[in-house]
Protein backbone atom coordinates (compact mmCIF):
# COMPACT_ATOMS: atom_id res chain seq x y z
CA UNK A 1 0.00 0.00 0.00
CA UNK A 2 1.77 3.06 -1.27
CA UNK A 3 1.53 6.45 0.27
CA UNK A 4 -0.69 8.65 -1.89
CA UNK A 5 -0.63 11.95 -0.03
CA UNK A 6 1.80 13.45 2.42
CA UNK A 7 1.17 16.66 4.29
CA UNK A 8 4.28 17.93 6.08
CA UNK A 9 4.12 20.65 8.67
CA UNK A 10 1.54 22.60 6.66
CA UNK A 11 0.37 26.03 7.77
CA UNK A 12 -1.95 28.58 6.25
CA UNK A 13 -2.93 32.14 6.96
CA UNK A 14 -5.03 34.54 4.94
CA UNK A 15 -3.25 37.43 3.26
CA UNK A 16 -2.91 40.35 5.65
CA UNK A 17 -3.94 38.29 8.66
CA UNK A 18 -1.56 37.76 11.56
CA UNK A 19 -2.92 34.47 12.82
CA UNK A 20 -2.59 31.11 11.15
CA UNK A 21 -5.86 29.37 10.30
CA UNK A 22 -3.98 26.14 10.95
CA UNK A 23 -0.35 25.14 11.43
CA UNK A 24 1.94 22.19 12.14
CA UNK A 25 -0.38 19.81 10.31
CA UNK A 26 1.34 16.59 9.24
CA UNK A 27 -0.15 13.30 8.15
CA UNK A 28 -0.13 10.85 5.28
CA UNK A 29 -2.73 8.90 3.41
CA UNK A 30 -2.37 5.50 1.76
CA UNK A 31 -4.50 3.38 -0.54
CA UNK A 32 -7.77 2.36 1.06
CA UNK A 33 -7.56 4.95 3.79
CA UNK A 34 -10.56 7.00 4.78
CA UNK A 35 -9.52 9.85 7.02
CA UNK A 36 -12.24 11.72 8.83
CA UNK A 37 -11.49 15.12 10.33
CA UNK A 38 -13.62 16.08 13.30
CA UNK A 39 -13.64 19.45 14.95
CA UNK A 40 -15.82 22.32 16.05
CA UNK A 41 -17.05 25.00 13.65
CA UNK A 42 -14.31 27.33 12.51
CA UNK A 43 -11.42 25.10 13.51
CA UNK A 44 -9.93 25.14 10.00
CA UNK A 45 -11.18 21.84 8.53
CA UNK A 46 -12.53 23.34 5.32
CA UNK A 47 -9.48 25.55 4.86
CA UNK A 48 -7.24 22.50 5.22
CA UNK A 49 -9.17 20.62 2.53
CA UNK A 50 -8.99 23.64 0.22
CA UNK A 51 -5.25 23.80 0.74
CA UNK A 52 -4.85 20.11 -0.13
CA UNK A 53 -6.84 20.75 -3.33
CA UNK A 54 -4.55 23.76 -3.89
CA UNK A 55 -7.53 26.12 -4.04
CA UNK A 56 -5.68 28.03 -1.33
CA UNK A 57 -1.91 28.01 -1.17
CA UNK A 58 -0.29 26.92 2.08
CA UNK A 59 2.01 29.50 3.59
CA UNK A 60 4.40 26.97 5.12
CA UNK A 61 5.24 23.28 4.78
CA UNK A 62 4.64 20.97 1.82
CA UNK A 63 1.84 18.89 0.36
CA UNK A 64 3.12 16.02 -1.75
CA UNK A 65 0.97 13.82 -3.93
CA UNK A 66 2.48 10.80 -5.70
CA UNK A 67 5.93 12.33 -5.11
CA UNK A 68 4.95 15.66 -6.67
CA UNK A 69 4.75 18.86 -4.68
CA UNK A 70 1.34 20.31 -5.52
CA UNK A 71 2.76 23.82 -5.29
CA UNK A 72 4.62 23.09 -8.54
CA UNK A 73 1.83 21.29 -10.35
CA UNK A 74 -0.42 22.70 -13.05
CA UNK A 75 -4.10 23.15 -12.26
CA UNK A 76 -5.25 20.37 -14.61
CA UNK A 77 -2.62 17.95 -13.29
CA UNK A 78 -3.82 18.53 -9.75
CA UNK A 79 -7.39 17.96 -10.91
CA UNK A 80 -6.38 14.58 -12.36
CA UNK A 81 -5.14 13.57 -8.91
CA UNK A 82 -7.37 15.29 -6.39
CA UNK A 83 -11.14 15.37 -6.52
CA UNK A 84 -12.95 17.84 -4.31
CA UNK A 85 -16.61 18.03 -3.37
CA UNK A 86 -17.35 21.39 -1.75
CA UNK A 87 -19.64 21.73 1.20
CA UNK A 88 -22.04 24.09 -0.49
CA UNK A 89 -22.73 24.13 -4.17
CA UNK A 90 -24.76 27.11 -5.37
CA UNK A 91 -26.20 26.21 -8.78
CA UNK A 92 -26.78 28.94 -11.34
CA UNK A 93 -27.79 27.53 -14.70
CA UNK A 94 -29.99 24.42 -14.89
CA UNK A 95 -27.52 22.12 -16.65
CA UNK A 96 -28.69 18.57 -17.16
CA UNK A 97 -27.28 16.01 -14.74
CA UNK A 98 -25.17 14.52 -17.53
CA UNK A 99 -23.77 17.96 -18.47
CA UNK A 100 -22.94 18.61 -14.81
CA UNK A 101 -21.13 15.28 -14.47
CA UNK A 102 -19.29 15.89 -17.75
CA UNK A 103 -17.59 18.86 -16.09
CA UNK A 104 -15.66 16.27 -14.08
CA UNK A 105 -13.79 15.50 -17.31
CA UNK A 106 -12.48 19.06 -17.69
CA UNK A 107 -8.91 18.18 -16.77
CA UNK A 108 -8.77 15.66 -19.64
CA UNK A 109 -10.33 17.93 -22.27
CA UNK A 110 -8.22 20.45 -24.14
CA UNK A 111 -8.82 24.17 -23.77
CA UNK A 112 -10.39 24.38 -27.19
CA UNK A 113 -12.34 21.15 -27.39
CA UNK A 114 -15.54 19.67 -26.09
CA UNK A 115 -16.23 16.31 -24.39
CA UNK A 116 -15.75 13.27 -26.61
CA UNK A 117 -17.92 10.19 -26.80
CA UNK A 118 -15.44 8.47 -24.43
CA UNK A 119 -15.89 11.23 -21.86
CA UNK A 120 -19.65 10.87 -22.09
CA UNK A 121 -19.33 7.11 -21.65
CA UNK A 122 -17.17 7.54 -18.51
CA UNK A 123 -19.85 9.85 -17.09
CA UNK A 124 -22.62 7.39 -17.92
CA UNK A 125 -20.64 4.71 -16.05
CA UNK A 126 -20.26 6.99 -13.02
CA UNK A 127 -24.00 7.70 -13.02
CA UNK A 128 -24.77 4.00 -13.26
CA UNK A 129 -22.31 3.17 -10.48
CA UNK A 130 -24.21 5.51 -8.15
CA UNK A 131 -27.63 4.38 -9.41
CA UNK A 132 -28.67 7.79 -10.69
CA UNK A 133 -28.48 7.06 -14.40
CA UNK A 134 -32.23 7.67 -14.74
CA UNK A 135 -31.68 11.32 -13.77
CA UNK A 136 -29.24 12.06 -16.62
CA UNK A 137 -31.52 14.30 -18.71
CA UNK A 138 -33.01 16.18 -15.77
CA UNK A 139 -31.93 19.72 -14.84
CA UNK A 140 -29.66 19.20 -11.85
CA UNK A 141 -31.23 22.23 -10.17
CA UNK A 142 -34.54 20.44 -10.15
CA UNK A 143 -33.68 17.31 -8.16
CA UNK A 144 -33.55 16.72 -4.43
CA UNK A 145 -30.60 17.72 -2.28
CA UNK A 146 -29.67 14.08 -1.80
CA UNK A 147 -29.70 13.45 -5.52
CA UNK A 148 -27.65 16.57 -6.20
CA UNK A 149 -25.04 15.38 -3.72
CA UNK A 150 -24.88 12.12 -5.68
CA UNK A 151 -24.45 14.12 -8.90
CA UNK A 152 -21.48 15.89 -7.31
CA UNK A 153 -20.17 12.49 -6.30
CA UNK A 154 -20.61 11.16 -9.83
CA UNK A 155 -18.79 14.21 -11.15
CA UNK A 156 -15.80 13.53 -8.91
CA UNK A 157 -15.81 9.83 -9.91
CA UNK A 158 -15.78 10.86 -13.58
CA UNK A 159 -12.75 12.96 -12.72
CA UNK A 160 -10.84 9.66 -12.13
CA UNK A 161 -8.66 11.02 -9.37
CA UNK A 162 -6.45 9.14 -6.96
CA UNK A 163 -7.68 11.01 -3.87
CA UNK A 164 -11.10 12.26 -2.85
CA UNK A 165 -11.74 15.26 -0.59
CA UNK A 166 -15.24 15.69 0.77
CA UNK A 167 -16.22 18.69 2.84
CA UNK A 168 -19.08 17.71 5.15
CA UNK A 169 -20.63 15.54 2.45
CA UNK A 170 -23.61 14.59 4.59
CA UNK A 171 -24.54 17.99 5.97
CA UNK A 172 -27.49 18.55 3.63
CA UNK A 173 -28.78 14.99 3.56
CA UNK A 174 -31.57 13.41 5.52
CA UNK A 175 -30.95 10.57 7.97
CA UNK A 176 -31.45 7.80 5.43
CA UNK A 177 -29.45 9.43 2.66
CA UNK A 178 -26.58 10.22 5.05
CA UNK A 179 -26.10 6.57 5.74
CA UNK A 180 -26.61 5.51 2.13
CA UNK A 181 -24.04 8.08 1.06
CA UNK A 182 -21.55 6.89 3.66
CA UNK A 183 -21.87 3.25 2.67
CA UNK A 184 -21.27 4.15 -0.98
CA UNK A 185 -18.25 6.19 0.09
CA UNK A 186 -16.97 3.29 2.19
CA UNK A 187 -17.20 0.91 -0.73
CA UNK A 188 -15.43 3.31 -3.07
CA UNK A 189 -12.69 3.93 -0.53
CA UNK A 190 -12.26 0.21 0.03
CA UNK A 191 -11.86 -0.28 -3.72
CA UNK A 192 -8.68 1.78 -3.57
CA UNK A 193 -9.67 5.44 -3.71
CA UNK A 194 -8.44 7.04 -0.49
CA UNK A 195 -10.54 9.88 0.83
CA UNK A 196 -10.52 12.64 3.39
CA UNK A 197 -13.82 13.91 4.71
CA UNK A 198 -14.79 16.40 7.33
CA UNK A 199 -17.75 15.76 9.55
CA UNK A 200 -19.60 16.94 12.62
CA UNK A 201 -20.83 13.48 13.56
CA UNK A 202 -18.49 11.19 15.52
CA UNK A 203 -20.76 8.29 14.60
CA UNK A 204 -19.88 8.77 10.95
CA UNK A 205 -16.27 8.09 11.84
CA UNK A 206 -17.17 4.69 13.23
CA UNK A 207 -19.24 4.00 10.11
CA UNK A 208 -16.65 4.70 7.41
CA UNK A 209 -13.27 5.91 8.62
CA UNK A 210 -10.18 3.92 9.46
CA UNK A 211 -8.28 7.03 10.50
CA UNK A 212 -9.51 10.04 12.36
CA UNK A 213 -8.03 13.41 13.22
CA UNK A 214 -9.39 15.75 15.82
CA UNK A 215 -8.79 19.34 14.92
CA UNK A 216 -9.14 22.34 17.15
CA UNK A 217 -7.80 25.87 16.91
CA UNK A 218 -5.91 25.00 13.73
CA UNK A 219 -4.04 22.00 15.10
CA UNK A 220 -4.46 18.24 15.13
CA UNK A 221 -5.05 17.35 18.78
CA UNK A 222 -5.17 13.64 18.09
CA UNK A 223 -4.65 11.38 15.09
CA UNK A 224 -5.09 7.63 14.84
CA UNK A 225 -7.68 4.90 14.51
CA UNK A 226 -11.25 5.70 15.57
CA UNK A 227 -11.06 3.42 18.60
CA UNK A 228 -7.90 5.12 19.88
CA UNK A 229 -8.92 8.69 19.20
CA UNK A 230 -12.65 8.89 19.82
CA UNK A 231 -12.54 8.60 23.58
CA UNK A 232 -14.96 10.21 25.96
CA UNK A 233 -12.19 12.50 27.14
CA UNK A 234 -11.22 13.72 23.64
CA UNK A 235 -14.83 14.33 22.68
CA UNK A 236 -15.35 16.37 25.84
CA UNK A 237 -12.24 18.39 25.00
CA UNK A 238 -13.38 19.42 21.55
CA UNK A 239 -17.14 19.77 21.90
CA UNK A 240 -17.40 20.67 25.61
CA UNK A 241 -20.16 18.18 26.30
CA UNK A 242 -20.14 14.84 28.07
CA UNK A 243 -20.36 11.92 25.64
CA UNK A 244 -20.65 8.23 26.36
CA UNK A 245 -18.95 5.95 23.82
CA UNK A 246 -20.73 2.61 23.80
CA UNK A 247 -19.94 -0.68 22.13
CA UNK A 248 -22.88 -2.10 20.22
CA UNK A 249 -22.97 -5.85 20.04
CA UNK A 250 -25.72 -8.20 18.91
CA UNK A 251 -24.13 -8.64 15.49
CA UNK A 252 -23.51 -4.98 14.67
CA UNK A 253 -20.21 -4.71 16.48
CA UNK A 254 -19.61 -0.97 16.18
CA UNK A 255 -19.15 1.88 18.60
CA UNK A 256 -21.60 4.73 18.94
CA UNK A 257 -21.46 8.09 20.69
CA UNK A 258 -24.28 9.25 22.92
CA UNK A 259 -24.33 12.77 24.38
CA UNK A 260 -25.44 12.63 28.00
CA UNK A 261 -25.92 16.23 29.03
Amino acid sequence: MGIKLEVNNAAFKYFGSKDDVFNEISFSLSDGDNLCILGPNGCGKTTLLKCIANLLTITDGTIVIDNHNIGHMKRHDIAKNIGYIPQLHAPTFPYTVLDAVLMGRTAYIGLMSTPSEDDIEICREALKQLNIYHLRERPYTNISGGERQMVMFARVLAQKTSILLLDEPTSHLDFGNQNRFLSILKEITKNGLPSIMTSHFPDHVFLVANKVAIMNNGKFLAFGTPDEVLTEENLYNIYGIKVKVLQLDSGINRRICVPID
Partner: protein
Amino acid sequence: MTTQIETKCTKNFKKPVSFWKKTPTITLILFISLILLFIISFWLGRYGISPAQVVQIFLSKIFPITPTWPDIMETVIFDIRLPRILAAILIGAALATAGASFQGLFRNPLVSPQILGVTSGAGFGAALAIVISGNPAVIQISAFGVALLAVGTSWLISNRVRGNPTLTLVLAGMAIGALFSALTSLMQYMADPEDELPEIVFWLMGSLNSIYMKDLIPVAIIIIVGITILMLIRWRINVLSMGEEEAKALGVNTTQLRAIIIVCASLITAAAVSISGMIGWVGLVMPHIGRMLVGPCNKKLLPVSALLGGIYMLIIDNICRTALSVEIPIGILTAIVGVPFFLYLIRKGKQGWV
Protein backbone atom coordinates in the same frame (compact mmCIF):
# COMPACT_ATOMS: atom_id res chain seq x y z
CA MET B 1 -23.79 -1.64 -5.62
CA THR B 2 -27.40 -1.50 -4.62
CA THR B 3 -27.61 1.53 -2.40
CA GLN B 4 -29.62 4.26 -3.98
CA ILE B 5 -30.31 7.80 -2.92
CA GLU B 6 -33.85 8.72 -3.72
CA THR B 7 -36.71 10.80 -2.50
CA LYS B 8 -40.42 10.72 -3.12
CA CYS B 9 -40.80 13.97 -4.98
CA THR B 10 -38.61 12.88 -7.87
CA LYS B 11 -40.56 9.79 -8.76
CA ASN B 12 -43.54 11.74 -10.08
CA PHE B 13 -41.45 14.09 -12.17
CA LYS B 14 -42.34 14.19 -15.85
CA LYS B 15 -39.34 13.54 -17.99
CA PRO B 16 -38.53 16.61 -20.07
CA VAL B 17 -37.89 16.35 -23.77
CA SER B 18 -34.25 15.65 -24.44
CA PHE B 19 -32.71 18.91 -25.58
CA TRP B 20 -29.63 17.10 -26.74
CA LYS B 21 -31.55 15.37 -29.51
CA LYS B 22 -33.45 18.48 -30.57
CA THR B 23 -30.45 20.75 -30.83
CA PRO B 24 -29.07 19.98 -34.31
CA THR B 25 -32.51 20.60 -35.80
CA ILE B 26 -32.92 23.93 -34.04
CA THR B 27 -29.47 25.10 -35.07
CA LEU B 28 -30.14 24.04 -38.65
CA ILE B 29 -33.53 25.79 -38.73
CA LEU B 30 -31.98 28.98 -37.39
CA PHE B 31 -29.15 28.80 -39.89
CA ILE B 32 -31.51 28.35 -42.84
CA SER B 33 -33.71 31.18 -41.53
CA LEU B 34 -30.69 33.46 -41.43
CA ILE B 35 -29.71 32.61 -45.01
CA LEU B 36 -33.27 33.18 -46.28
CA LEU B 37 -33.53 36.43 -44.37
CA PHE B 38 -30.17 37.50 -45.77
CA ILE B 39 -31.44 36.99 -49.32
CA ILE B 40 -34.83 38.61 -48.69
CA SER B 41 -33.21 41.66 -47.11
CA PHE B 42 -31.73 42.68 -50.47
CA TRP B 43 -35.06 43.49 -52.05
CA LEU B 44 -36.32 45.47 -49.09
CA GLY B 45 -35.76 49.21 -49.10
CA ARG B 46 -36.70 52.60 -50.42
CA TYR B 47 -35.27 52.02 -53.87
CA GLY B 48 -37.44 49.33 -55.45
CA ILE B 49 -35.56 46.34 -56.81
CA SER B 50 -37.45 43.18 -57.66
CA PRO B 51 -36.28 39.77 -56.40
CA ALA B 52 -35.53 38.67 -59.96
CA GLN B 53 -33.32 41.70 -60.51
CA VAL B 54 -31.47 41.04 -57.27
CA VAL B 55 -30.74 37.49 -58.38
CA GLN B 56 -29.66 38.67 -61.83
CA ILE B 57 -27.36 41.31 -60.39
CA PHE B 58 -25.71 38.77 -58.11
CA LEU B 59 -25.35 36.23 -60.91
CA SER B 60 -23.84 38.88 -63.17
CA LYS B 61 -20.85 38.98 -60.82
CA ILE B 62 -20.16 35.32 -61.56
CA PHE B 63 -21.56 34.77 -65.06
CA PRO B 64 -21.29 37.17 -67.98
CA ILE B 65 -24.85 38.54 -68.08
CA THR B 66 -25.54 41.68 -70.06
CA PRO B 67 -26.94 44.28 -67.64
CA THR B 68 -30.60 45.12 -68.25
CA TRP B 69 -30.75 47.27 -65.14
CA PRO B 70 -29.52 50.78 -64.36
CA ASP B 71 -26.09 51.08 -62.75
CA ILE B 72 -27.59 52.65 -59.68
CA MET B 73 -29.23 49.35 -58.78
CA GLU B 74 -25.85 47.71 -58.55
CA THR B 75 -24.61 50.57 -56.38
CA VAL B 76 -27.62 50.22 -54.09
CA ILE B 77 -27.13 46.49 -53.72
CA PHE B 78 -23.37 46.27 -53.34
CA ASP B 79 -22.44 49.61 -51.76
CA ILE B 80 -25.46 50.31 -49.57
CA ARG B 81 -27.45 47.19 -48.81
CA LEU B 82 -24.73 44.53 -48.70
CA PRO B 83 -22.54 46.25 -46.06
CA ARG B 84 -25.56 47.13 -44.01
CA ILE B 85 -26.99 43.62 -44.07
CA LEU B 86 -23.62 42.09 -43.21
CA ALA B 87 -23.14 44.63 -40.43
CA ALA B 88 -26.53 43.82 -38.91
CA ILE B 89 -25.77 40.09 -38.84
CA LEU B 90 -22.26 40.56 -37.45
CA ILE B 91 -23.30 43.07 -34.80
CA GLY B 92 -26.24 40.95 -33.66
CA ALA B 93 -24.09 37.81 -33.51
CA ALA B 94 -21.32 39.67 -31.67
CA LEU B 95 -23.58 41.19 -29.02
CA ALA B 96 -25.45 37.93 -28.42
CA THR B 97 -22.27 35.84 -28.20
CA ALA B 98 -20.63 38.35 -25.86
CA GLY B 99 -23.79 38.42 -23.75
CA ALA B 100 -23.97 34.64 -23.44
CA SER B 101 -20.25 34.41 -22.58
CA PHE B 102 -20.47 37.13 -19.93
CA GLN B 103 -23.58 35.55 -18.43
CA GLY B 104 -21.63 32.32 -17.99
CA LEU B 105 -18.55 34.09 -16.67
CA PHE B 106 -20.47 36.15 -14.14
CA ARG B 107 -22.81 33.25 -13.33
CA ASN B 108 -25.76 35.54 -13.77
CA PRO B 109 -28.40 35.58 -16.51
CA LEU B 110 -29.05 39.30 -15.94
CA VAL B 111 -25.65 40.32 -17.27
CA SER B 112 -25.32 42.08 -20.62
CA PRO B 113 -22.19 42.85 -22.67
CA GLN B 114 -21.99 46.34 -21.19
CA ILE B 115 -21.30 44.98 -17.70
CA LEU B 116 -17.67 46.10 -17.79
CA GLY B 117 -18.43 49.57 -19.11
CA VAL B 118 -17.78 48.80 -22.80
CA THR B 119 -20.74 50.68 -24.23
CA SER B 120 -20.45 53.61 -21.83
CA GLY B 121 -16.83 53.93 -22.91
CA ALA B 122 -17.82 53.71 -26.58
CA GLY B 123 -20.48 56.39 -26.05
CA PHE B 124 -17.97 58.76 -24.52
CA GLY B 125 -15.38 58.01 -27.19
CA ALA B 126 -17.89 58.78 -29.93
CA ALA B 127 -19.18 61.94 -28.23
CA LEU B 128 -15.66 63.20 -27.68
CA ALA B 129 -14.74 62.60 -31.32
CA ILE B 130 -17.93 64.26 -32.54
CA VAL B 131 -17.14 67.39 -30.53
CA ILE B 132 -13.46 67.50 -31.44
CA SER B 133 -13.35 66.22 -35.00
CA GLY B 134 -16.62 65.06 -36.54
CA ASN B 135 -14.88 62.75 -39.02
CA PRO B 136 -16.80 59.41 -39.15
CA ALA B 137 -13.60 57.33 -39.17
CA VAL B 138 -12.26 59.20 -36.13
CA ILE B 139 -15.60 58.71 -34.35
CA GLN B 140 -15.46 54.96 -35.00
CA ILE B 141 -11.85 54.57 -33.87
CA SER B 142 -12.37 56.75 -30.81
CA ALA B 143 -15.50 54.81 -29.79
CA PHE B 144 -13.63 51.52 -30.16
CA GLY B 145 -10.53 52.77 -28.33
CA VAL B 146 -12.31 54.31 -25.36
CA ALA B 147 -14.55 51.24 -25.06
CA LEU B 148 -11.46 49.07 -24.64
CA LEU B 149 -9.95 51.64 -22.29
CA ALA B 150 -13.05 51.40 -20.10
CA VAL B 151 -12.90 47.60 -19.91
CA GLY B 152 -9.16 47.67 -19.35
CA THR B 153 -9.57 50.09 -16.48
CA SER B 154 -12.30 47.97 -14.88
CA TRP B 155 -10.08 44.94 -15.19
CA LEU B 156 -6.99 46.62 -13.77
CA ILE B 157 -8.94 47.95 -10.82
CA SER B 158 -10.43 44.53 -10.07
CA ASN B 159 -6.98 42.94 -10.22
CA ARG B 160 -5.78 45.38 -7.59
CA VAL B 161 -8.50 44.34 -5.18
CA ARG B 162 -8.33 41.12 -3.18
CA GLY B 163 -11.49 39.12 -2.98
CA ASN B 164 -13.92 37.35 -5.26
CA PRO B 165 -12.59 38.20 -8.74
CA THR B 166 -15.96 38.21 -10.51
CA LEU B 167 -17.59 40.38 -7.88
CA THR B 168 -14.81 42.97 -7.89
CA LEU B 169 -14.92 42.96 -11.69
CA VAL B 170 -18.65 43.72 -11.71
CA LEU B 171 -18.25 46.49 -9.15
CA ALA B 172 -15.35 48.05 -11.02
CA GLY B 173 -17.31 47.78 -14.29
CA MET B 174 -20.32 49.52 -12.77
CA ALA B 175 -18.15 52.32 -11.43
CA ILE B 176 -16.29 52.82 -14.72
CA GLY B 177 -19.58 52.66 -16.66
CA ALA B 178 -21.06 55.37 -14.45
CA LEU B 179 -17.96 57.50 -14.86
CA PHE B 180 -18.04 57.32 -18.66
CA SER B 181 -21.79 57.96 -18.76
CA ALA B 182 -21.18 61.13 -16.77
CA LEU B 183 -18.39 62.14 -19.14
CA THR B 184 -20.72 61.54 -22.11
CA SER B 185 -23.28 63.86 -20.48
CA LEU B 186 -20.52 66.41 -20.04
CA MET B 187 -19.74 66.19 -23.76
CA GLN B 188 -23.43 66.66 -24.59
CA TYR B 189 -23.52 69.69 -22.31
CA MET B 190 -20.48 71.19 -24.01
CA ALA B 191 -21.47 70.27 -27.57
CA ASP B 192 -22.75 72.79 -30.07
CA PRO B 193 -26.58 72.38 -29.86
CA GLU B 194 -26.98 73.14 -33.58
CA ASP B 195 -25.15 70.19 -35.06
CA GLU B 196 -22.89 68.33 -32.60
CA LEU B 197 -25.50 67.64 -29.93
CA PRO B 198 -28.02 66.02 -32.31
CA GLU B 199 -25.21 63.93 -33.77
CA ILE B 200 -24.22 62.66 -30.33
CA VAL B 201 -27.84 61.89 -29.51
CA PHE B 202 -28.32 60.00 -32.78
CA TRP B 203 -25.12 58.08 -32.24
CA LEU B 204 -26.26 57.06 -28.77
CA MET B 205 -29.58 55.82 -30.17
CA GLY B 206 -27.75 53.57 -32.59
CA SER B 207 -27.98 53.27 -36.36
CA LEU B 208 -26.64 51.20 -39.20
CA ASN B 209 -27.44 54.00 -41.60
CA SER B 210 -24.05 54.97 -42.93
CA ILE B 211 -21.95 51.84 -42.98
CA TYR B 212 -19.60 51.35 -45.90
CA MET B 213 -17.54 48.32 -46.79
CA LYS B 214 -14.26 50.01 -45.91
CA ASP B 215 -15.45 50.73 -42.35
CA LEU B 216 -16.97 47.30 -42.02
CA ILE B 217 -13.98 45.17 -42.97
CA PRO B 218 -11.73 45.80 -39.91
CA VAL B 219 -14.75 45.49 -37.63
CA ALA B 220 -15.80 42.26 -39.34
CA ILE B 221 -12.33 40.77 -38.89
CA ILE B 222 -12.30 41.56 -35.16
CA ILE B 223 -15.81 40.20 -34.68
CA ILE B 224 -15.19 36.99 -36.61
CA VAL B 225 -11.91 36.26 -34.80
CA GLY B 226 -13.43 37.04 -31.39
CA ILE B 227 -16.53 34.93 -31.97
CA THR B 228 -14.40 32.05 -33.27
CA ILE B 229 -12.24 32.01 -30.13
CA LEU B 230 -15.29 32.16 -27.85
CA MET B 231 -16.86 29.31 -29.83
CA LEU B 232 -13.71 27.22 -29.36
CA ILE B 233 -13.67 27.61 -25.57
CA ARG B 234 -17.45 27.61 -25.17
CA TRP B 235 -17.71 24.32 -23.32
CA ARG B 236 -15.31 25.54 -20.62
CA ILE B 237 -17.63 28.46 -19.89
CA ASN B 238 -19.97 25.84 -18.40
CA VAL B 239 -17.28 24.81 -15.94
CA LEU B 240 -16.44 28.41 -15.07
CA SER B 241 -20.11 29.09 -14.37
CA MET B 242 -19.94 26.58 -11.50
CA GLY B 243 -17.96 29.16 -9.59
CA GLU B 244 -14.32 30.11 -9.25
CA GLU B 245 -13.41 27.49 -6.67
CA GLU B 246 -15.17 24.53 -8.26
CA ALA B 247 -13.83 25.41 -11.68
CA LYS B 248 -10.30 25.40 -10.24
CA ALA B 249 -10.90 22.08 -8.48
CA LEU B 250 -12.08 20.65 -11.82
CA GLY B 251 -8.81 21.69 -13.43
CA VAL B 252 -9.57 25.04 -15.06
CA ASN B 253 -6.94 27.75 -15.09
CA THR B 254 -9.60 30.29 -14.16
CA THR B 255 -7.41 33.38 -14.47
CA GLN B 256 -6.47 32.46 -18.03
CA LEU B 257 -9.99 31.47 -19.07
CA ARG B 258 -11.52 34.59 -17.57
CA ALA B 259 -8.95 36.71 -19.42
CA ILE B 260 -9.75 35.04 -22.76
CA ILE B 261 -13.49 35.58 -22.28
CA ILE B 262 -13.15 39.20 -21.18
CA VAL B 263 -10.75 40.11 -23.98
CA CYS B 264 -12.76 38.42 -26.75
CA ALA B 265 -16.21 39.48 -25.57
CA SER B 266 -15.07 43.06 -24.96
CA LEU B 267 -13.31 43.30 -28.32
CA ILE B 268 -16.31 42.11 -30.30
CA THR B 269 -18.72 44.31 -28.33
CA ALA B 270 -16.48 47.34 -28.76
CA ALA B 271 -16.09 46.61 -32.48
CA ALA B 272 -19.85 46.23 -32.89
CA VAL B 273 -20.89 49.38 -31.07
CA SER B 274 -18.12 51.42 -32.71
CA ILE B 275 -20.03 51.24 -36.00
CA SER B 276 -23.59 50.87 -34.79
CA GLY B 277 -23.78 53.11 -31.75
CA MET B 278 -25.47 52.01 -28.57
CA ILE B 279 -27.62 48.93 -29.06
CA GLY B 280 -28.99 47.47 -25.88
CA TRP B 281 -31.21 44.50 -25.23
CA VAL B 282 -29.79 42.11 -27.86
CA GLY B 283 -26.87 40.91 -25.75
CA LEU B 284 -29.06 40.46 -22.70
CA VAL B 285 -32.04 38.73 -24.25
CA MET B 286 -30.83 36.57 -27.15
CA PRO B 287 -29.02 34.16 -24.77
CA HIS B 288 -32.28 33.81 -22.81
CA ILE B 289 -34.23 32.90 -25.90
CA GLY B 290 -31.38 30.52 -26.77
CA ARG B 291 -31.67 28.85 -23.36
CA MET B 292 -35.40 28.39 -23.89
CA LEU B 293 -34.65 26.66 -27.19
CA VAL B 294 -31.64 24.46 -26.39
CA GLY B 295 -31.04 24.63 -22.63
CA PRO B 296 -28.17 26.23 -20.74
CA CYS B 297 -25.18 24.17 -21.94
CA ASN B 298 -22.89 26.64 -23.69
CA LYS B 299 -21.79 24.05 -26.20
CA LYS B 300 -25.21 24.45 -27.81
CA LEU B 301 -26.13 27.85 -26.45
CA LEU B 302 -23.34 29.96 -27.92
CA PRO B 303 -23.88 29.04 -31.59
CA VAL B 304 -27.65 29.33 -31.19
CA SER B 305 -27.31 32.74 -29.49
CA ALA B 306 -25.07 34.00 -32.28
CA LEU B 307 -27.56 32.88 -34.94
CA LEU B 308 -30.48 34.38 -33.00
CA GLY B 309 -28.59 37.65 -32.58
CA GLY B 310 -27.87 37.87 -36.30
CA ILE B 311 -31.46 37.07 -37.26
CA TYR B 312 -32.91 39.50 -34.74
CA MET B 313 -30.71 42.43 -35.71
CA LEU B 314 -31.36 41.84 -39.39
CA ILE B 315 -35.14 41.82 -38.86
CA ILE B 316 -34.99 44.94 -36.71
CA ASP B 317 -32.74 46.78 -39.15
CA ASN B 318 -35.02 45.85 -42.05
CA ILE B 319 -37.90 47.40 -40.11
CA CYS B 320 -35.77 50.45 -39.30
CA ARG B 321 -35.02 51.22 -42.92
CA THR B 322 -38.40 50.38 -44.46
CA ALA B 323 -41.19 51.01 -41.95
CA LEU B 324 -41.26 54.82 -42.03
CA SER B 325 -40.16 57.36 -44.59
CA VAL B 326 -37.40 58.35 -42.16
CA GLU B 327 -34.86 56.00 -40.66
CA ILE B 328 -35.78 54.76 -37.15
CA PRO B 329 -32.80 54.58 -34.76
CA ILE B 330 -32.11 50.87 -34.26
CA GLY B 331 -31.37 51.14 -30.53
CA ILE B 332 -34.96 52.24 -30.01
CA LEU B 333 -36.54 49.45 -32.02
CA THR B 334 -34.47 46.61 -30.57
CA ALA B 335 -36.23 47.22 -27.28
CA ILE B 336 -39.68 48.28 -28.53
CA VAL B 337 -40.02 45.18 -30.69
CA GLY B 338 -38.05 42.88 -28.41
CA VAL B 339 -39.63 43.57 -25.03
CA PRO B 340 -43.21 42.42 -25.81
CA PHE B 341 -41.86 39.35 -27.58
CA PHE B 342 -39.58 38.55 -24.66
CA LEU B 343 -42.37 39.00 -22.11
CA TYR B 344 -44.52 36.66 -24.16
CA LEU B 345 -41.75 34.06 -24.13
CA ILE B 346 -41.21 34.36 -20.38
CA ARG B 347 -44.90 33.82 -19.83
CA LYS B 348 -45.07 30.85 -22.13
CA GLY B 349 -41.64 29.39 -21.70
CA LYS B 350 -40.32 26.61 -19.58
CA GLN B 351 -39.48 27.76 -16.12
CA GLY B 352 -35.97 27.30 -14.98
CA TRP B 353 -34.51 27.42 -18.46
CA VAL B 354 -34.54 31.21 -18.34
